[in-house]
């Protein structure tokens, strides 16, 4: 089932929570709404579900316009951030509640219950109450409850935010595998960029009610559309500058670090811009198109990487990742280093 949003808007008093959002989500796609709290991602999801009224624009599921329909007529399955399992019902009661409302036969209900619980690996826990389950199990019950109704669209509102880090990664994988098997169109809301990158087909980054960029995870990380996206998704070094030369394939930008050779960009000659370089693309004493002298100010050892804060001549601090700390001798603070980064990994972004 495809989803199409056209100029969808939501206002609360004078603030606009969602501002003319237009999106096309493909059939079977896992589409993520990513952004900081207050960016409108949850409001947008609740408009898809029908819990928040649409103030402007339209929403279509397939060919059907749904933005005036109540939630129960949209054929959606929703998983809530706190799971919203009914505490007075058992797992069986929770999962089969919607089926019972649809007056299915007892045999059919039993069949769907068994199938639903099997999908999420919870068979055998039918008679437990939510309070007797672990967080991960509760999460799966919520998922099973949403799926047994065979919804056209699955909506997930930060489903992993209440889980421990380890379990989060595990359940994340399970959700992704299940979604692929079922081929169900899924909209996933999160503020965790790692989660978004790891399980999405495409991601929409939102800020202050507006969509900043829609892209596949790799494109989002490597080609962020603006400074906000570059900053919110992963880590970046930002260097302000003015475009001095433009040629095919590269540009020269005047910065506090001197003239920096960059990748192509769409900022006009003489325009102010901001350069973005990922820490993993900056090297110590290596080869690169751009070289800057600096001193180690801080080292943070993370096990699989090592991050240095290097203070450069202009007082600008660059983050530098050493990807292979096993073969690297830790440098003391104050140590003089030479920092290099390639032009191709240096993005020219409009300053916003």
């Amino acid at each position, binding site marked *: 089932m495809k989803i199409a949003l056209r100029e969808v808007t939501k206002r609360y008093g004078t603030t606009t929570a969602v501002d003319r959002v237009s999106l096309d989500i493909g059939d079977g796609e896992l589409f993520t709404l990513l952004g900081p709290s207050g960016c409108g991602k949850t409001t947008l999801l609740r408009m898809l579900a*029908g*819990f928040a009224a649409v103030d402007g624009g339209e929403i279509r599921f397939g060919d059907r316009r749904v933005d005036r329909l109540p*939630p129960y007529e949209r054929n959606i399955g929703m998983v809530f951030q706190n799971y*919203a399992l009914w*505490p007075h019902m058992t797992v069986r009661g929770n999962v089969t*509640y919607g089926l019972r409302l649809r007056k299915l036969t007892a045999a059919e209900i039993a069949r769907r219950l068994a199938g639903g619980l099997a999908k999420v690996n919870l068979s055998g826990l039918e008679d437990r109450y939510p309070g007797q389950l672990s967080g991960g199990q509760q999460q799966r019950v919520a998922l099973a409850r949403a799926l047994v109704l065979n919804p056209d669209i699955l909506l997930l509102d930060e489903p992993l935010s209440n889980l421990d880090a380890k379990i989060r990664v595990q359940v994340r994988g399970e959700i992704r595998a299940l979604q692929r098997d079922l081929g169900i169109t899924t909209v996933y809301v999160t503020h965790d960029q790692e989660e978004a990158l790891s399980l999405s087909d495409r991601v929409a980054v939102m800020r202050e009610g507006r969509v900043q960029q829609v892209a596949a995870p790799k494109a989002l990380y490597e080609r962020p559309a603006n400074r906000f996206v570059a900053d919110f998704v992963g880590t970046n070094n930002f260097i302000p500058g003015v475009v001095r030369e433009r040629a095919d394939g590269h540009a020269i930008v005047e910065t506090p670090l001197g003239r920096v050779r960059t990748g192509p960009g769409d900022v006009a000659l003489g325009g102010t811009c901001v350069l973005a370089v990922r820490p993993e693309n900056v090297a110590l004493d290596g080869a690169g198109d751009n070289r800057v002298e600096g001193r180690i100010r801080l080292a943070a050892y993370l096990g699989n990487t090592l991050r240095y804060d290097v203070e450069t001549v202009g007082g600008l601090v660059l983050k530098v990742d050493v990807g292979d700390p096993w073969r690297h001798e830790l440098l003391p603070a104050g140590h003089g280093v030479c920092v290099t980064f390639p032009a191709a990994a240096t993005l020219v972004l409009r300053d916003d």
Partner: protein
Amino acid sequence: MKSDGTLAAAPARRVMATALPALGVALLWAFLAVFLVYPLLRVFYDAFSNEAGRLTLENFVAFAGDAFYRRSLWNSLLLGLGTVAATSILGIAIALLLVRYDFPGRQLFGYLTLIPIISPPLVGVLGFTFIMGKAGTVNILLEDWLGLAKPINFVYGIHGVLLVETLHLFPMITLNVVDALSRIDPSLEEAAESVGSRGWRKLCTITLPLTTPGYVAGALLVFIWTFSDFATPLVLGVHDLLASQAYLNIVQFVDRRLFRMGLVISALMVALAIVFLIAARRYVAIKDYSSLSYSRVARRRLGPLGAAGAVTFLSAVMAFSFVPYLGVALASVGRGWSMTPFPVRYTGLFFERVIVETPKYIVNSFLYSALAVVLCIVIGVPIAWILARTRLPGRDTLDGLNTLILAVPGTAIGIAYIRAFHTELPWLGIPLTSLWIILPIVLAVRRLPYTVRGSYASLLLVHRSMEEAAASVGARGLRSFGDVTLPLIWRGVLVGALFSFMTSLQEASAVLFLSLGGWETIPVGIFAFYIAGSANEAAALGVILIAVAAVSVLVINRLAGTRMGGMFG
């Protein structure tokens, strides 16, 4: 470096630091053991033994063999269940309207639901008889206008008891359900909607079941209250109820057999309260529905028709709740009020009589209640602290005893005290029942839970780390309690204490058993005046009681907001 003096003093101080709290805890337990556990056990012992002191079931056999008692038991159970049903329908409907819908005057109605609580039931029933009695305003008007030959019996009889109890007790349900409703996480209902549940079905399968823990607590109190109230039925001329029989049997003091029947009934009441309490605790324990919810289900604005319906319904209920106030107020200043819809002349004579001529009612009430509240605070705050902050052995028992007090009817406590403290005290040579101090004590025991709950709730809000932070910068023991905890909890303590005070003033049942000449409180005065036929004096005392209660409720509301529901759970 410490000086020699402090070094020498240190062990002594350490002994004091552990001995004093231990002594305090021991005193708390001793108080509860003597004034709560012992009297209740004594009632059971008496119910299960004969005149010779031998253990026997013959009292219960005699009880079960008496058709009149069997009918009384049956009537009492029916009345209790009927009142629970009626208060539930009324209370839940009002709670749903107040929490889930928006209509003109919603907030005002929210306050007005507290009105029935302000008037003690004894006063309420008086007011009803003035307005709805056989010679009351309504019947007189009906006779004048419609030429009714015979007055309609609105209140005298068991249906009247049901009416009066329902109108007095429905706020217990409303407050508890309002509290529970506003704590339901909206996503629980949204999840129901997303799978296709709405309207009545959502209400019945999701919303109301989620309120059951709060509701059950309220419903139990309503049942126990109705089951053990004897003043209301007696005023309305209903004698074939267990509570009425218990009172009549105990206060006659002549026939030993009847007296023992009173004890049996009292034991039955306590047993019922305990069984209910355990059942409710089991039920609520397996159903912990509390969730950390940061948002609330949005209020739905009612259309003009719905709003009109809601306002009409609530106005009707409130008008009914207002009947006793009108009746008591008119009777307290009216003269020559017979066979006329309203009094013919107005006078301050009755107030003069009960305030100036015999000030003992007011003086006694305030003295006993004030002493009771002091006791409540001295005992209740430490209990709350033990419950909230320590892992002392016996905490659960302490908590259980505290809740038990809420469930055990005043009638049973009063009877238990008569039995338990009728023996002469060792040095004084007279029994405790001959000393007026027994009244503040029984009031303190009866109203202790409110103070404990008020303090406990606010102690839970003061995170332990706040005290630890004070300790980390050098505040020791009681110092951190005084400097950090107390300033943060005094409001809750005060609310609980005020509630204890207000309900102490209103306490009729236990005090009626124990009060001797010269110790009369306002409720005792009301009962005595009314039974003696001086209804106007009773009404004047009732007005005073209502006025004090109204002021207390206003202050409590100011301090605590409208969430009084927790007090009754």
